[in-house]
């Protein structure tokens, strides 16, 4: 009996979003990256197009981060200097630089002003060529002020600003529209809020080519399956034609994976069978990212360069066409 390959007929696809702008496009980036665009389930090229490989962003902060000790040997030489840090992750192979402006957190002493943040962003842009994503400190009011200043300073560069949430999206969306940037909308592992926020952003006038979704990532072992299922549902929604579920998805694999004790605990504090911290932490992050790629991640945010390299290599195998 001949086998008939069973192909789904999809009517929709994931929105394609371009990040960054080259000189011709009014920016200074050396290249741009495209997120999304798939018209099939993750890595099933036999029934649709996957025009863009999922993108790997590297995380950096504007101040020395409170990351586990094992990052000292990786970034200890640069983490007091954002420009040096950005250059380093670019050399390490980041497709995209993801900057968290933690230094503007109002709970910190000497919290950075919006102007100071904008200067950091400008300096990074002047010294690197990769597209940039910028996340605020995580305090709604300060986020609004900081992202507005950053959006102005980076006008024309088509960076991504985040994160906008259901209760705090207007001024970030305005900053994105003013500076022609992309916006990252975050929903709390909730498919309805994800859709609702996308509707609110588009109703405000944000162009669909500028919207990126962060459905909130659970780390491996700590709720990742919730994110996985929300992402699978959103991708399915996109493929059957729901444009408000069709925006490319970012997964914060690095920050979430490294919150787990399994990732950071030195061997003295490790559980039975866990082994050495370094490979365990790297794999905890890589596995988090790889699993979320199976659910439809279009961009994974990575923290440890070794984990990022593993995921990049893993993606090569997944991107080989499986057309029958």
């Amino acid at each position, binding site marked *: 009996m001949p086998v008939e390959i069973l192909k789904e007929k999809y009517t929709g696809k994931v929105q394609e979003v371009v990040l960054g702008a080259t000189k011709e496009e009014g920016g200074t980036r050396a290249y741009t990256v495209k997120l999304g665009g798939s018209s099939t389930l993750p890595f099933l090229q036999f029934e649709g197009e996957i025009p863009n490989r999922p993108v790997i962003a590297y995380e950096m902060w504007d101040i020395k981060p409170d990351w586990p000790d094992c990052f000292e040997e990786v970034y200890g030489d640069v983490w007091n200097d954002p420009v040096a840090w950005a250059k380093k992750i670019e050399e390490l192979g980041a497709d995209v630089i993801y900057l968290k402006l933690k230094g503007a957190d109002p709970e910190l002493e000497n919290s950075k002003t919006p102007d100071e943040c904008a200067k950091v962003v400008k300096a990074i842009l002047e010294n690197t060529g990769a597209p940039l994503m910028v996340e605020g400190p995580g305090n709604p009011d300060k986020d609004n002020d900081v992202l507005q200043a950053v959006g102005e300073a980076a006008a024309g560069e088509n960076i991504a600003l985040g994160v906008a949430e259901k209760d705090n999206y207007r001024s970030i969306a305005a900053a994105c529209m003013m500076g022609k940037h992309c916006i990252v909308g975050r929903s709390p592992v909730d498919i309805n809020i994800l859709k609702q926020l996308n509707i609110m952003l588009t109703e405000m006038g944000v162009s669909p080519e500028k919207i990126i979704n962060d459905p909130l990532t659970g780390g491996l072992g700590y709720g990742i399956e919730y994110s996985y299922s929300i992402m699978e549902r959103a991708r399915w929604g996109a493929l059957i034609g729901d444009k408000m579920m069709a925006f490319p998805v970012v997964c914060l694999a690095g920050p979430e994976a490294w919150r787990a004790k399994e990732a950071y605990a030195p061997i003295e504090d490790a559980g039975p069978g866990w082994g050495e911290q370094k490979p365990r932490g790297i794999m905890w992050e890589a596995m988090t990212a790889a699993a979320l790629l199976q659910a439809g991640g279009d961009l994974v945010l990575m923290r440890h360069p070794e984990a990022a390299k593993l995921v990049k290599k893993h993606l090569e*195998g997944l991107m080989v066409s499986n057309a029958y």
Partner: protein
Amino acid sequence: MGLTGLAIFRLLPKTNCGECGVPTCMAFAMNLASGKATLSDCPHVSDAAKEALESATAPPIKLVKAGTGDNVLEMGDEQVLFRHDKTFYHPTGIFIEVADTDDVAAKVAEIDALKFERVGQTYVVDGVAIKGSAADSFKKAVEAAAAKTNKVLLLMSEDPAAMEAAAAVVADRKPILYAANADNCEKMVEIAKKINAPLVVKGKNLEDLVALVEKVVGLGYKELILDSGERETSKVLADLTQIRRQAIKKRFRPFGYPAIAFTTEEDPYLEALQAQVYVSKFASVVVMKHTDLASLLTLFSWRNNIYTDPQKPIAVQPGVYAIGAVTPDSPVYITTNFSLTYYTVATEVEATRLPSYLIAFDTDGLSVMTAWAGGKFIGETIGPWLKDSDINQKVNHKKLIIPGGVAAIKGKIEELSGWEVIVGPREASGIGSFAKLRLGA
């Protein structure tokens, strides 16, 4: 799925004899439709009806079992392509491959001893695959492996004579036999039938696999596991998707069996990521080569996550737990009975090395913030419970440490229980420094 209760009812004798255990044929039909009864419970059903019903009510993917005693691996019997549509039922079995040219006894002992513990769970390797190079060494290797482990064995040789000799050694262990191909399948089926062991059918591609499955089924054997023969990651993913999708959506019988996949990556970390693809997407067995701890710990954790039932939160038994050698002076912490929350907190409390009580408060398995928002982890529920709890007899103080995220419930608990509430850290990871600073740990 198969038939509705009403469609099944039409095929039943309609005598309402009650011998099946429920009073009416209609009730029995409903039970059949929902999978709560099996047709063999009805002694009067006609043969024609039986055939019609069996093919319609058979699960889309057959349940196949390997191993014996405490080491039985159940494979297949899955019903959905996406876990959010229902759940995935039978976690992928992780096997490690050992060649008969290796020091089999030592390697199998090492695999057998692998054990990982986290958040109250234990992960172990499910089975050992023995790869044969020659008949004689294969048989010896299987003997050596069987002596070192009770885990499920998977015997790998496409030479029927070698397989027959090796299978005879573990005839009572229900090993998985690998593999039947176009040239050896008559003989392989005979060997598998003799010891009632699951047999892997290995095609050169999906089309070849179908022809082979039909041939094997024609020989009267249905304890099967499928291997499309593909080994490249993206193509294996495509084949596993086709097998699962056609079995479920089209009830295509030749694909109605569990599937097996083999890793090919040489690097142990990339191997684990590759295995993850097959665990996520539809393999019932994955055979790997390395035993790297970081790789296996993360892979097992992922398997555990994706096979969690999305319909029910995982909870621990509510109550008062003693962590370490507690005394009446020990501090008392409270959190919810959502198992992830509980074990995360318990792990941190244990790490303070200060013996403590930890209350897993009944929130129907919700996490702290969700339970608080849902009115299940608030002063009005905790206060009265605490007032009457047996923790009052266990300690000589009345000081309760609550999660920092719900500091707002402090007053109400104090008012309703008479206890003093200490607001602890927001995150479990802050318990160590909290205990040091505030409790003198």
